[in-house]
Protein backbone atom coordinates (compact mmCIF):
# COMPACT_ATOMS: atom_id res chain seq x y z
CA UNK A 1 0.00 0.00 0.00
CA UNK A 2 1.13 3.52 -0.72
CA UNK A 3 2.69 5.42 2.12
CA UNK A 4 2.60 9.12 2.65
CA UNK A 5 5.30 10.56 0.43
CA UNK A 6 6.29 13.35 2.73
CA UNK A 7 6.12 13.90 6.41
CA UNK A 8 6.52 17.24 8.13
CA UNK A 9 7.40 18.13 11.65
CA UNK A 10 5.37 20.16 14.04
CA UNK A 11 7.23 23.31 15.01
CA UNK A 12 6.38 25.67 17.80
CA UNK A 13 5.49 29.18 16.67
CA UNK A 14 5.95 32.35 18.74
CA UNK A 15 2.19 32.98 18.34
CA UNK A 16 1.73 30.12 20.81
CA UNK A 17 3.47 32.08 23.54
CA UNK A 18 1.10 35.03 23.37
CA UNK A 19 -1.17 35.48 26.37
CA UNK A 20 -4.72 34.24 25.72
CA UNK A 21 -6.57 37.58 25.77
CA UNK A 22 -4.04 39.12 23.39
CA UNK A 23 -3.63 36.72 20.46
CA UNK A 24 -1.40 37.42 17.47
CA UNK A 25 -3.21 39.22 14.66
CA UNK A 26 -3.07 38.07 11.06
CA UNK A 27 -4.71 39.11 7.81
CA UNK A 28 -5.70 35.71 6.49
CA UNK A 29 -5.63 32.16 7.81
CA UNK A 30 -6.17 29.25 5.42
CA UNK A 31 -7.28 26.01 7.07
CA UNK A 32 -6.41 22.77 5.29
CA UNK A 33 -3.23 22.04 3.31
CA UNK A 34 -4.81 20.06 0.49
CA UNK A 35 -4.53 21.09 -3.17
CA UNK A 36 -7.04 23.93 -2.70
CA UNK A 37 -5.62 25.41 0.50
CA UNK A 38 -2.04 25.13 -0.72
CA UNK A 39 -2.85 26.76 -4.07
CA UNK A 40 -4.86 29.53 -2.47
CA UNK A 41 -2.04 30.27 -0.02
CA UNK A 42 0.49 30.48 -2.87
CA UNK A 43 -1.78 32.73 -4.91
CA UNK A 44 -2.33 35.11 -1.99
CA UNK A 45 1.39 35.13 -1.15
CA UNK A 46 2.30 35.92 -4.76
CA UNK A 47 -0.03 38.89 -4.47
CA UNK A 48 1.96 40.08 -1.46
CA UNK A 49 -0.28 38.83 1.34
CA UNK A 50 1.08 37.12 4.42
CA UNK A 51 -0.76 33.86 4.97
CA UNK A 52 -0.97 31.45 7.88
CA UNK A 53 -1.78 27.95 6.62
CA UNK A 54 -2.92 25.42 9.21
CA UNK A 55 -3.25 21.66 8.83
CA UNK A 56 -4.24 19.16 11.48
CA UNK A 57 -2.03 16.38 10.07
CA UNK A 58 1.75 16.25 9.75
CA UNK A 59 1.88 14.59 6.37
CA UNK A 60 0.55 14.64 2.86
CA UNK A 61 -2.48 12.42 2.60
CA UNK A 62 -2.22 8.78 1.63
CA UNK A 63 -3.57 7.27 -1.54
CA UNK A 64 -3.82 8.73 -5.01
CA UNK A 65 -7.30 10.25 -4.46
CA UNK A 66 -7.84 12.99 -7.06
CA UNK A 67 -5.89 12.07 -10.18
CA UNK A 68 -7.28 14.09 -13.11
CA UNK A 69 -6.19 17.70 -13.29
CA UNK A 70 -7.76 19.83 -15.99
CA UNK A 71 -6.26 22.24 -18.47
CA UNK A 72 -7.77 25.06 -16.46
CA UNK A 73 -6.09 23.81 -13.27
CA UNK A 74 -2.76 23.47 -15.08
CA UNK A 75 -3.02 27.03 -16.37
CA UNK A 76 -3.67 28.15 -12.80
CA UNK A 77 -0.72 26.15 -11.53
CA UNK A 78 1.43 27.78 -14.24
CA UNK A 79 0.57 31.09 -12.65
CA UNK A 80 1.51 29.67 -9.25
CA UNK A 81 4.90 28.53 -10.57
CA UNK A 82 4.26 24.77 -10.36
CA UNK A 83 2.71 23.97 -13.75
CA UNK A 84 5.84 22.56 -15.38
CA UNK A 85 6.56 20.23 -12.50
CA UNK A 86 3.01 18.87 -12.52
CA UNK A 87 2.99 18.34 -16.29
CA UNK A 88 6.50 16.84 -16.37
CA UNK A 89 5.52 14.23 -13.82
CA UNK A 90 1.93 13.71 -14.91
CA UNK A 91 0.66 11.62 -17.79
CA UNK A 92 -0.97 13.71 -20.48
CA UNK A 93 -4.24 12.58 -22.01
CA UNK A 94 -7.15 13.89 -24.04
CA UNK A 95 -8.83 10.78 -25.48
CA UNK A 96 -11.54 8.76 -23.78
CA UNK A 97 -13.22 5.57 -24.97
CA UNK A 98 -16.60 4.22 -23.96
CA UNK A 99 -17.27 0.51 -24.23
CA UNK A 100 -20.47 -1.45 -23.87
CA UNK A 101 -19.94 -5.14 -23.27
CA UNK A 102 -17.15 -6.31 -25.56
CA UNK A 103 -17.31 -3.50 -28.09
CA UNK A 104 -16.36 0.15 -28.25
CA UNK A 105 -19.31 2.51 -28.54
CA UNK A 106 -17.32 5.62 -29.31
CA UNK A 107 -14.29 7.68 -28.47
CA UNK A 108 -13.93 11.36 -27.74
CA UNK A 109 -11.09 13.86 -27.77
CA UNK A 110 -11.31 16.59 -25.14
CA UNK A 111 -8.84 18.87 -26.91
CA UNK A 112 -8.99 18.13 -30.62
CA UNK A 113 -7.09 21.26 -31.70
CA UNK A 114 -3.45 22.34 -31.48
CA UNK A 115 -2.11 25.64 -30.25
CA UNK A 116 -2.66 25.26 -26.52
CA UNK A 117 0.15 25.31 -24.01
CA UNK A 118 -1.52 22.77 -21.75
CA UNK A 119 -3.26 19.48 -22.55
CA UNK A 120 -6.90 18.69 -21.79
CA UNK A 121 -5.86 16.75 -18.70
CA UNK A 122 -2.97 15.23 -16.84
CA UNK A 123 -3.28 12.37 -14.44
CA UNK A 124 -1.17 12.80 -11.34
CA UNK A 125 -1.54 11.31 -7.89
CA UNK A 126 -2.81 13.92 -5.47
CA UNK A 127 0.18 13.32 -3.18
CA UNK A 128 2.57 14.46 -5.91
CA UNK A 129 0.49 17.57 -6.57
CA UNK A 130 0.47 18.38 -2.86
CA UNK A 131 4.20 17.73 -2.49
CA UNK A 132 5.04 20.11 -5.35
CA UNK A 133 2.78 22.78 -3.89
CA UNK A 134 4.44 22.39 -0.47
CA UNK A 135 7.85 22.75 -2.14
CA UNK A 136 6.70 25.93 -3.82
CA UNK A 137 5.50 27.28 -0.48
CA UNK A 138 8.91 26.63 1.02
CA UNK A 139 10.46 28.77 -1.73
CA UNK A 140 8.04 31.64 -1.25
CA UNK A 141 8.21 34.29 1.42
CA UNK A 142 4.97 35.07 3.17
CA UNK A 143 3.43 31.66 3.94
CA UNK A 144 3.64 30.31 7.45
CA UNK A 145 2.66 26.63 7.12
CA UNK A 146 1.92 25.06 10.50
CA UNK A 147 1.44 21.30 10.66
CA UNK A 148 -0.46 19.58 13.47
CA UNK A 149 -2.40 22.75 14.11
CA UNK A 150 -6.05 21.81 14.46
CA UNK A 151 -8.73 24.48 14.69
CA UNK A 152 -11.09 23.55 17.52
CA UNK A 153 -13.11 26.71 17.98
CA UNK A 154 -14.02 29.79 16.06
CA UNK A 155 -15.43 33.05 17.27
CA UNK A 156 -16.63 35.69 14.82
CA UNK A 157 -16.26 39.30 15.86
CA UNK A 158 -17.18 42.45 13.97
CA UNK A 159 -13.77 42.99 12.41
CA UNK A 160 -11.99 39.68 12.99
CA UNK A 161 -12.24 35.97 13.71
CA UNK A 162 -10.56 34.41 16.72
CA UNK A 163 -9.46 30.82 16.24
CA UNK A 164 -8.55 28.35 18.96
CA UNK A 165 -5.92 25.96 17.71
CA UNK A 166 -4.89 22.65 19.28
CA UNK A 167 -1.26 21.55 18.91
CA UNK A 168 0.87 18.77 20.42
CA UNK A 169 2.00 21.39 22.94
CA UNK A 170 -1.45 22.59 23.86
CA UNK A 171 -3.89 25.16 22.57
CA UNK A 172 -3.35 28.76 21.50
CA UNK A 173 -5.47 31.43 19.88
CA UNK A 174 -4.97 33.75 17.00
CA UNK A 175 -6.94 36.53 15.48
CA UNK A 176 -7.39 37.09 11.77
CA UNK A 177 -9.38 39.27 9.41
CA UNK A 178 -10.47 36.34 7.24
CA UNK A 179 -10.47 32.57 7.50
CA UNK A 180 -10.58 30.41 4.38
CA UNK A 181 -11.88 26.94 5.16
CA UNK A 182 -10.33 24.45 2.76
CA UNK A 183 -10.71 21.60 5.22
CA UNK A 184 -12.45 19.14 2.96
CA UNK A 185 -15.79 17.38 2.71
CA UNK A 186 -15.93 16.67 6.44
CA UNK A 187 -15.04 20.28 7.23
CA UNK A 188 -15.02 20.97 10.94
CA UNK A 189 -15.14 24.71 10.27
CA UNK A 190 -18.42 24.21 8.48
CA UNK A 191 -19.80 22.64 11.63
CA UNK A 192 -18.38 25.48 13.72
CA UNK A 193 -20.31 28.08 11.73
CA UNK A 194 -23.39 25.88 12.00
CA UNK A 195 -23.95 25.58 8.25
CA UNK A 196 -25.87 22.76 6.64
CA UNK A 197 -24.43 20.64 3.86
CA UNK A 198 -27.51 19.49 2.01
CA UNK A 199 -27.82 17.34 -1.08
CA UNK A 200 -28.27 13.89 -2.47
CA UNK A 201 -26.71 10.70 -1.13
CA UNK A 202 -26.13 7.93 -3.67
CA UNK A 203 -26.53 4.38 -2.46
CA UNK A 204 -24.30 2.76 -5.05
CA UNK A 205 -20.90 1.67 -3.92
CA UNK A 206 -17.73 2.03 -5.92
CA UNK A 207 -14.42 0.32 -5.41
CA UNK A 208 -11.23 2.21 -6.27
CA UNK A 209 -8.08 0.19 -6.66
CA UNK A 210 -4.83 1.79 -7.73
CA UNK A 211 -2.61 -1.01 -8.96
CA UNK A 212 1.01 -1.02 -10.01
CA UNK A 213 1.81 -3.01 -13.13
CA UNK A 214 3.51 -2.69 -16.47
CA UNK A 215 0.86 -2.60 -19.15
CA UNK A 216 0.54 -1.59 -22.75
CA UNK A 217 -2.82 0.17 -22.53
CA UNK A 218 -2.70 3.61 -24.12
CA UNK A 219 -2.86 6.75 -22.00
CA UNK A 220 -6.60 7.17 -22.40
CA UNK A 221 -9.66 7.08 -20.19
CA UNK A 222 -11.51 3.81 -20.73
CA UNK A 223 -15.01 3.41 -19.41
CA UNK A 224 -17.16 0.30 -19.68
CA UNK A 225 -20.86 -0.28 -19.29
CA UNK A 226 -21.55 -3.91 -18.51
CA UNK A 227 -18.09 -5.23 -19.37
CA UNK A 228 -17.55 -8.99 -19.78
CA UNK A 229 -15.26 -8.99 -16.72
CA UNK A 230 -17.73 -7.16 -14.45
CA UNK A 231 -21.20 -8.05 -15.66
CA UNK A 232 -24.06 -5.61 -15.29
CA UNK A 233 -22.02 -2.79 -13.79
CA UNK A 234 -19.55 -0.13 -14.86
CA UNK A 235 -15.77 0.02 -14.80
CA UNK A 236 -13.08 2.64 -15.39
CA UNK A 237 -9.40 2.28 -16.23
CA UNK A 238 -7.03 5.22 -16.17
CA UNK A 239 -3.28 5.57 -16.15
CA UNK A 240 -1.21 7.44 -13.58
CA UNK A 241 2.55 8.08 -13.38
CA UNK A 242 4.91 5.39 -12.05
CA UNK A 243 3.05 2.52 -13.79
CA UNK A 244 0.10 2.98 -11.48
CA UNK A 245 -3.38 2.42 -12.90
CA UNK A 246 -6.63 3.67 -11.45
CA UNK A 247 -9.40 1.08 -11.60
CA UNK A 248 -12.87 2.00 -10.50
CA UNK A 249 -15.51 -0.73 -10.27
CA UNK A 250 -19.17 -0.18 -9.50
CA UNK A 251 -20.43 -2.59 -6.83
CA UNK A 252 -23.95 -3.42 -5.83
CA UNK A 253 -25.83 -1.27 -3.34
CA UNK A 254 -25.84 -4.02 -0.75
CA UNK A 255 -22.17 -5.09 -1.13
CA UNK A 256 -20.45 -5.57 2.24
CA UNK A 257 -17.81 -2.82 2.39
CA UNK A 258 -15.57 -4.61 4.89
CA UNK A 259 -15.48 -7.77 2.78
CA UNK A 260 -15.11 -5.95 -0.53
CA UNK A 261 -12.21 -3.82 0.65
CA UNK A 262 -9.98 -6.74 1.62
CA UNK A 263 -7.13 -7.07 -0.87
CA UNK A 264 -7.72 -10.84 -1.22
CA UNK A 265 -11.27 -10.10 -2.37
CA UNK A 266 -10.32 -7.22 -4.65
CA UNK A 267 -7.56 -9.20 -6.37
CA UNK A 268 -9.79 -11.66 -8.31
CA UNK A 269 -11.99 -8.80 -9.55
CA UNK A 270 -8.99 -6.94 -10.94
CA UNK A 271 -7.44 -10.12 -12.33
CA UNK A 272 -10.66 -10.83 -14.24
CA UNK A 273 -10.48 -7.35 -15.71
CA UNK A 274 -6.81 -7.44 -16.66
CA UNK A 275 -6.63 -11.10 -17.60
CA UNK A 276 -3.65 -11.63 -15.28
CA UNK A 277 -2.70 -11.05 -11.68
CA UNK A 278 0.74 -9.56 -12.08
CA UNK A 279 0.02 -6.36 -10.19
CA UNK A 280 0.49 -4.88 -6.74
CA UNK A 281 -2.00 -2.76 -4.88
CA UNK A 282 -1.08 0.86 -4.22
CA UNK A 283 -4.34 1.90 -2.64
CA UNK A 284 -7.82 0.46 -2.18
CA UNK A 285 -10.84 2.48 -1.21
CA UNK A 286 -14.54 1.78 -1.17
CA UNK A 287 -16.87 4.71 -1.34
CA UNK A 288 -20.39 5.95 -1.71
CA UNK A 289 -20.75 9.47 -2.79
CA UNK A 290 -22.85 12.49 -2.26
CA UNK A 291 -23.61 15.56 -4.28
CA UNK A 292 -24.21 18.47 -1.95
CA UNK A 293 -23.26 22.04 -1.26
CA UNK A 294 -23.46 24.74 1.35
CA UNK A 295 -26.19 27.26 0.81
CA UNK A 296 -23.71 30.11 1.24
CA UNK A 297 -19.94 29.98 0.80
CA UNK A 298 -19.48 33.12 2.90
CA UNK A 299 -20.25 33.00 6.60
CA UNK A 300 -19.24 36.36 7.97
CA UNK A 301 -15.46 36.38 7.77
CA UNK A 302 -15.21 32.65 7.19
CA UNK A 303 -15.09 31.71 3.51
CA UNK A 304 -15.45 28.13 2.26
CA UNK A 305 -13.62 26.75 -0.77
CA UNK A 306 -13.28 23.31 -2.35
CA UNK A 307 -14.85 20.17 -0.89
CA UNK A 308 -15.79 21.94 2.33
CA UNK A 309 -18.23 24.05 0.29
CA UNK A 310 -19.40 21.53 -2.30
CA UNK A 311 -19.03 17.85 -2.99
CA UNK A 312 -19.61 15.99 -6.24
CA UNK A 313 -19.38 12.43 -7.50
CA UNK A 314 -15.93 11.60 -8.86
CA UNK A 315 -17.00 10.87 -12.44
CA UNK A 316 -16.05 14.01 -14.30
CA UNK A 317 -12.98 15.20 -12.40
CA UNK A 318 -15.00 18.02 -10.91
CA UNK A 319 -13.86 17.81 -7.29
CA UNK A 320 -10.27 19.02 -7.05
CA UNK A 321 -10.54 21.00 -10.28
CA UNK A 322 -13.55 22.97 -9.08
CA UNK A 323 -11.77 23.56 -5.78
CA UNK A 324 -8.81 25.03 -7.64
CA UNK A 325 -11.22 27.25 -9.59
CA UNK A 326 -12.60 28.41 -6.24
CA UNK A 327 -9.07 29.31 -5.16
CA UNK A 328 -8.29 31.31 -8.28
CA UNK A 329 -11.65 33.07 -8.10
CA UNK A 330 -11.26 33.99 -4.45
CA UNK A 331 -7.62 34.96 -4.09
CA UNK A 332 -7.54 38.10 -6.24
CA UNK A 333 -10.77 39.33 -4.70
CA UNK A 334 -9.62 38.75 -1.15
CA UNK A 335 -6.30 40.40 -1.95
CA UNK A 336 -8.08 43.52 -3.20
CA UNK A 337 -10.37 43.60 -0.18
CA UNK A 338 -7.44 43.24 2.24
CA UNK A 339 -5.64 46.10 0.45
CA UNK A 340 -8.73 48.25 0.58
CA UNK A 341 -8.77 48.67 -3.20
CA UNK A 342 -12.17 46.96 -3.46
CA UNK A 343 -15.04 46.89 -0.97
CA UNK A 344 -15.72 43.72 1.03
CA UNK A 345 -18.86 43.26 -1.07
CA UNK A 346 -16.60 42.04 -3.90
CA UNK A 347 -16.40 38.77 -1.96
CA UNK A 348 -20.11 38.27 -2.53
CA UNK A 349 -19.27 37.73 -6.21
CA UNK A 350 -17.11 34.78 -5.15
CA UNK A 351 -20.18 33.21 -3.58
CA UNK A 352 -22.34 34.02 -6.61
CA UNK A 353 -19.92 32.84 -9.28
CA UNK A 354 -18.72 29.72 -7.53
CA UNK A 355 -22.29 28.79 -6.53
CA UNK A 356 -23.15 28.75 -10.22
CA UNK A 357 -20.16 26.52 -10.80
CA UNK A 358 -21.05 24.24 -7.88
CA UNK A 359 -24.61 23.87 -9.18
CA UNK A 360 -23.33 23.05 -12.64
CA UNK A 361 -20.83 20.53 -11.30
CA UNK A 362 -23.44 18.89 -9.10
CA UNK A 363 -25.91 18.77 -11.99
CA UNK A 364 -23.39 17.23 -14.37
CA UNK A 365 -22.02 14.69 -11.94
CA UNK A 366 -25.49 13.72 -10.70
CA UNK A 367 -26.55 13.04 -14.27
CA UNK A 368 -23.49 10.89 -14.86
CA UNK A 369 -24.11 8.98 -11.66
CA UNK A 370 -27.76 8.41 -12.45
CA UNK A 371 -26.81 7.14 -15.89
CA UNK A 372 -24.27 4.71 -14.42
CA UNK A 373 -26.56 3.57 -11.63
CA UNK A 374 -30.19 3.93 -12.73
CA UNK A 375 -32.58 4.41 -9.83
CA UNK A 376 -35.69 2.73 -11.22
CA UNK A 377 -36.60 0.04 -13.74
CA UNK A 378 -37.71 2.70 -16.19
CA UNK A 379 -34.45 4.62 -15.85
CA UNK A 380 -32.60 1.38 -16.53
CA UNK A 381 -34.83 0.81 -19.56
CA UNK A 382 -34.09 4.27 -20.98
CA UNK A 383 -30.39 3.71 -20.42
CA UNK A 384 -30.56 0.37 -22.17
CA UNK A 385 -32.25 2.09 -25.11
CA UNK A 386 -29.52 4.77 -25.24
CA UNK A 387 -26.74 2.18 -25.13
CA UNK A 388 -28.29 0.13 -27.92
CA UNK A 389 -29.05 3.21 -30.05
CA UNK A 390 -25.44 4.34 -29.54
CA UNK A 391 -24.28 1.37 -31.58
CA UNK A 392 -26.11 2.63 -34.65
CA UNK A 393 -26.71 6.37 -34.23
CA UNK A 394 -24.62 9.43 -33.53
CA UNK A 395 -27.23 10.95 -31.24
CA UNK A 396 -27.22 7.81 -29.09
CA UNK A 397 -23.46 8.02 -28.62
CA UNK A 398 -23.76 11.58 -27.42
CA UNK A 399 -26.40 10.62 -24.86
CA UNK A 400 -24.21 7.93 -23.31
CA UNK A 401 -22.96 9.47 -20.09
CA UNK A 402 -19.80 7.90 -18.71
CA UNK A 403 -18.77 11.14 -17.01
CA UNK A 404 -18.73 14.67 -18.45
CA UNK A 405 -15.29 16.00 -17.74
CA UNK A 406 -14.61 19.26 -16.04
CA UNK A 407 -14.53 22.43 -18.11
CA UNK A 408 -14.47 25.95 -16.67
CA UNK A 409 -17.91 27.24 -15.78
CA UNK A 410 -19.26 30.44 -17.38
CA UNK A 411 -20.41 33.05 -14.92
CA UNK A 412 -23.53 35.11 -15.27
CA UNK A 413 -21.92 37.69 -13.03
CA UNK A 414 -22.46 41.24 -11.82
CA UNK A 415 -18.74 41.77 -12.48
CA UNK A 416 -19.20 41.27 -16.23
CA UNK A 417 -20.12 44.05 -18.62
CA UNK A 418 -22.52 42.77 -21.26
CA UNK A 419 -21.49 42.92 -24.90
CA UNK A 420 -22.44 46.22 -26.49
CA UNK A 421 -21.41 45.13 -29.98
CA UNK A 422 -21.92 42.12 -32.23
CA UNK A 423 -19.64 39.10 -31.79
CA UNK A 424 -19.81 35.87 -33.75
CA UNK A 425 -17.50 33.90 -31.46
CA UNK A 426 -14.82 34.24 -28.84
CA UNK A 427 -15.24 33.96 -25.07
CA UNK A 428 -18.18 35.99 -23.80
CA UNK A 429 -17.89 38.12 -20.64
CA UNK A 430 -18.01 35.66 -17.75
CA UNK A 431 -16.12 32.97 -19.69
CA UNK A 432 -12.57 31.81 -19.18
CA UNK A 433 -9.89 33.17 -21.52
CA UNK A 434 -8.74 30.85 -24.31
CA UNK A 435 -5.17 29.98 -25.02
CA UNK A 436 -3.51 30.49 -28.41
CA UNK A 437 0.03 30.33 -29.75
CA UNK A 438 1.78 33.66 -30.27
CA UNK A 439 5.33 34.81 -30.90
CA UNK A 440 7.08 37.32 -28.74
CA UNK A 441 9.21 39.90 -30.54
CA UNK A 442 12.31 37.76 -30.61
CA UNK A 443 10.39 35.27 -32.72
CA UNK A 444 10.18 32.76 -29.90
CA UNK A 445 7.13 30.54 -29.64
CA UNK A 446 4.93 31.32 -26.68
CA UNK A 447 1.31 31.29 -25.59
CA UNK A 448 -1.31 33.81 -24.59
CA UNK A 449 -1.55 32.17 -21.17
CA UNK A 450 2.19 32.83 -20.72
CA UNK A 451 1.73 36.48 -21.61
CA UNK A 452 -1.17 36.70 -19.17
CA UNK A 453 0.95 35.15 -16.43
CA UNK A 454 4.12 37.16 -16.99
CA UNK A 455 4.76 39.84 -14.43
CA UNK A 456 1.99 38.63 -12.12
CA UNK A 457 -1.66 38.25 -12.80
CA UNK A 458 -3.61 41.42 -12.38
CA UNK A 459 -6.19 42.75 -14.79
CA UNK A 460 -5.00 42.70 -18.38
CA UNK A 461 -6.14 44.27 -21.61
CA UNK A 462 -5.73 41.91 -24.53
CA UNK A 463 -5.90 44.04 -27.64
CA UNK A 464 -5.67 43.32 -31.33
CA UNK A 465 -3.85 46.30 -32.68
CA UNK A 466 -4.97 48.48 -35.52
CA UNK A 467 -2.00 50.82 -35.28
CA UNK A 468 -3.44 53.17 -32.70
CA UNK A 469 -4.56 50.80 -29.97
CA UNK A 470 -6.16 52.27 -26.90
CA UNK A 471 -3.91 52.27 -23.85
CA UNK A 472 -4.64 50.11 -20.86
CA UNK A 473 -5.62 52.03 -17.71
CA UNK A 474 -3.10 52.33 -14.87
CA UNK A 475 -2.40 49.01 -13.20
CA UNK A 476 -3.79 47.00 -16.11
CA UNK A 477 -1.31 44.93 -18.03
CA UNK A 478 -1.12 45.44 -21.79
CA UNK A 479 -1.08 42.35 -23.99
CA UNK A 480 -1.01 43.66 -27.52
CA UNK A 481 -1.21 41.44 -30.55
CA UNK A 482 -0.08 42.77 -33.92
CA UNK A 483 1.16 46.22 -34.85
CA UNK A 484 4.59 47.63 -34.18
CA UNK A 485 6.09 46.11 -31.06
CA UNK A 486 3.13 43.78 -30.56
CA UNK A 487 3.07 40.00 -30.31
CA UNK A 488 2.85 38.12 -33.58
CA UNK A 489 -0.17 35.91 -34.19
CA UNK A 490 1.33 34.23 -37.26
CA UNK A 491 -1.04 31.26 -37.23
CA UNK A 492 -3.97 33.66 -36.84
CA UNK A 493 -5.33 31.47 -34.06
CA UNK A 494 -5.50 34.18 -31.40
CA UNK A 495 -7.59 36.41 -33.67
CA UNK A 496 -9.75 33.46 -34.67
CA UNK A 497 -10.38 32.18 -31.14
CA UNK A 498 -11.24 35.69 -29.95
CA UNK A 499 -13.29 36.60 -33.05
CA UNK A 500 -11.02 39.64 -33.19
CA UNK A 501 -10.90 42.40 -35.76
CA UNK A 502 -8.29 45.16 -35.75
CA UNK A 503 -9.10 47.27 -32.72
CA UNK A 504 -10.90 44.55 -30.75
CA UNK A 505 -9.97 44.29 -27.08
CA UNK A 506 -10.74 42.00 -24.14
CA UNK A 507 -10.51 43.05 -20.52
CA UNK A 508 -9.32 40.02 -18.53
CA UNK A 509 -9.76 39.61 -14.78
CA UNK A 510 -6.85 38.47 -12.61
CA UNK A 511 -8.29 34.92 -12.68
CA UNK A 512 -8.22 34.89 -16.48
CA UNK A 513 -11.95 35.40 -16.94
CA UNK A 514 -13.29 37.87 -19.49
CA UNK A 515 -14.76 40.93 -17.76
CA UNK A 516 -15.71 42.80 -20.94
CA UNK A 517 -14.88 43.02 -24.62
CA UNK A 518 -15.00 45.80 -27.13
CA UNK A 519 -14.99 46.19 -30.88
CA UNK A 520 -14.12 49.85 -30.50
CA UNK A 521 -12.67 50.32 -27.04
CA UNK A 522 -12.43 53.76 -25.53
CA UNK A 523 -10.69 54.84 -22.35
CA UNK A 524 -14.11 55.49 -20.87
CA UNK A 525 -15.64 52.13 -21.74
CA UNK A 526 -12.60 50.24 -20.46
CA UNK A 527 -12.51 52.24 -17.23
CA UNK A 528 -16.20 51.58 -16.63
CA UNK A 529 -15.83 47.83 -17.21
CA UNK A 530 -12.77 47.73 -14.98
CA UNK A 531 -14.47 49.48 -12.14
CA UNK A 532 -17.44 47.11 -12.45
CA UNK A 533 -15.17 44.06 -12.39
CA UNK A 534 -13.39 45.44 -9.32
CA UNK A 535 -16.72 45.63 -7.54
CA UNK A 536 -16.54 49.42 -7.28
CA UNK A 537 -20.03 50.09 -8.55
Amino acid sequence: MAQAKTQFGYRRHPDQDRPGPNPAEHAVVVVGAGPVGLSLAIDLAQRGQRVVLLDDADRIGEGSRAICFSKRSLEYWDRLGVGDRMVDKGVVWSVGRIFHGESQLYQFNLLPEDGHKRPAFINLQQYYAEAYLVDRITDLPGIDLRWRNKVTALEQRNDSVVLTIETPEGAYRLSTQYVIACDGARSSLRQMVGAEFAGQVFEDQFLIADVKMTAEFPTERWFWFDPPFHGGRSALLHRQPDDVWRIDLQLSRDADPVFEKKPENVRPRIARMLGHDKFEFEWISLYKFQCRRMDRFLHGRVIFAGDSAHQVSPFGARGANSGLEDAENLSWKLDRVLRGSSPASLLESYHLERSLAADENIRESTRSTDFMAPNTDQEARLRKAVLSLAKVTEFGKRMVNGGRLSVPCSYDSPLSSPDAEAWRGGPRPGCSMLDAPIEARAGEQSYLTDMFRNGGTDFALLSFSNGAAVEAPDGVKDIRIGGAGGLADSAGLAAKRYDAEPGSAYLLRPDGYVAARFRHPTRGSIAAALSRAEGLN
Partner: protein
Amino acid sequence: MALSTSSNFARPDDAFRAIVEAHRGLSDAESADLDAALVLILANHIGDIDVLREAIVLAKRRMIDGQQQQQQQQ
Protein backbone atom coordinates in the same frame (compact mmCIF):
# COMPACT_ATOMS: atom_id res chain seq x y z
CA MET B 1 -41.05 26.87 -31.66
CA ALA B 2 -44.05 25.74 -29.66
CA LEU B 3 -45.35 22.19 -29.41
CA SER B 4 -47.78 21.55 -32.22
CA THR B 5 -50.98 19.89 -31.04
CA SER B 6 -52.98 20.38 -34.22
CA SER B 7 -53.26 17.30 -36.38
CA ASN B 8 -50.09 16.99 -38.46
CA PHE B 9 -50.70 13.72 -40.28
CA ALA B 10 -52.80 13.67 -43.44
CA ARG B 11 -53.91 10.21 -42.33
CA PRO B 12 -53.67 10.11 -38.52
CA ASP B 13 -55.08 6.56 -38.41
CA ASP B 14 -52.02 5.34 -40.29
CA ALA B 15 -49.70 6.84 -37.68
CA PHE B 16 -51.64 5.41 -34.77
CA ARG B 17 -51.83 2.06 -36.51
CA ALA B 18 -48.07 2.00 -37.19
CA ILE B 19 -47.34 2.44 -33.49
CA VAL B 20 -49.94 -0.11 -32.42
CA GLU B 21 -48.63 -2.67 -34.86
CA ALA B 22 -45.08 -2.14 -33.72
CA HIS B 23 -46.19 -3.38 -30.29
CA ARG B 24 -48.10 -6.43 -31.57
CA GLY B 25 -46.79 -9.66 -30.14
CA LEU B 26 -44.55 -7.98 -27.59
CA SER B 27 -44.63 -8.62 -23.86
CA ASP B 28 -45.21 -5.61 -21.60
CA ALA B 29 -41.49 -5.41 -20.89
CA GLU B 30 -40.60 -5.57 -24.57
CA SER B 31 -43.21 -2.93 -25.33
CA ALA B 32 -41.76 -0.68 -22.69
CA ASP B 33 -38.29 -1.18 -24.23
CA LEU B 34 -39.66 -0.29 -27.63
CA ASP B 35 -41.36 2.84 -26.31
CA ALA B 36 -38.19 3.96 -24.55
CA ALA B 37 -36.18 3.72 -27.75
CA LEU B 38 -38.94 5.35 -29.78
CA VAL B 39 -39.22 8.29 -27.38
CA LEU B 40 -35.48 8.90 -27.55
CA ILE B 41 -35.38 8.68 -31.35
CA LEU B 42 -38.31 11.05 -31.76
CA ALA B 43 -37.05 13.45 -29.10
CA ASN B 44 -33.75 13.70 -30.92
CA HIS B 45 -35.52 14.23 -34.22
CA ILE B 46 -37.48 17.13 -32.72
CA GLY B 47 -34.22 18.46 -31.36
CA ASP B 48 -35.82 21.28 -29.39
CA ILE B 49 -35.66 21.04 -25.61
CA ASP B 50 -38.55 23.47 -25.11
CA VAL B 51 -40.84 21.46 -27.37
CA LEU B 52 -39.78 18.28 -25.58
CA ARG B 53 -40.53 19.82 -22.19
CA GLU B 54 -43.93 20.99 -23.38
CA ALA B 55 -44.68 17.51 -24.65
CA ILE B 56 -43.69 16.04 -21.28
CA VAL B 57 -45.94 18.50 -19.47
CA LEU B 58 -48.85 17.65 -21.75
CA ALA B 59 -48.33 13.92 -21.36
CA LYS B 60 -48.05 14.17 -17.57
CA ARG B 61 -51.06 16.45 -17.26
CA ARG B 62 -53.25 13.91 -19.04
CA MET B 63 -52.00 11.33 -16.60
CA ILE B 64 -52.75 13.48 -13.55
CA ASP B 65 -56.18 14.45 -14.92
CA GLY B 66 -56.91 10.77 -15.45
CA GLN B 67 -55.93 9.91 -11.88
CA GLN B 68 -58.10 12.70 -10.48
CA GLN B 69 -61.08 11.51 -12.52
CA GLN B 70 -60.57 8.01 -11.20
CA GLN B 71 -60.40 9.27 -7.64
CA GLN B 72 -63.59 11.27 -8.08
CA GLN B 73 -65.38 8.23 -9.45
CA GLN B 74 -64.29 6.23 -6.42
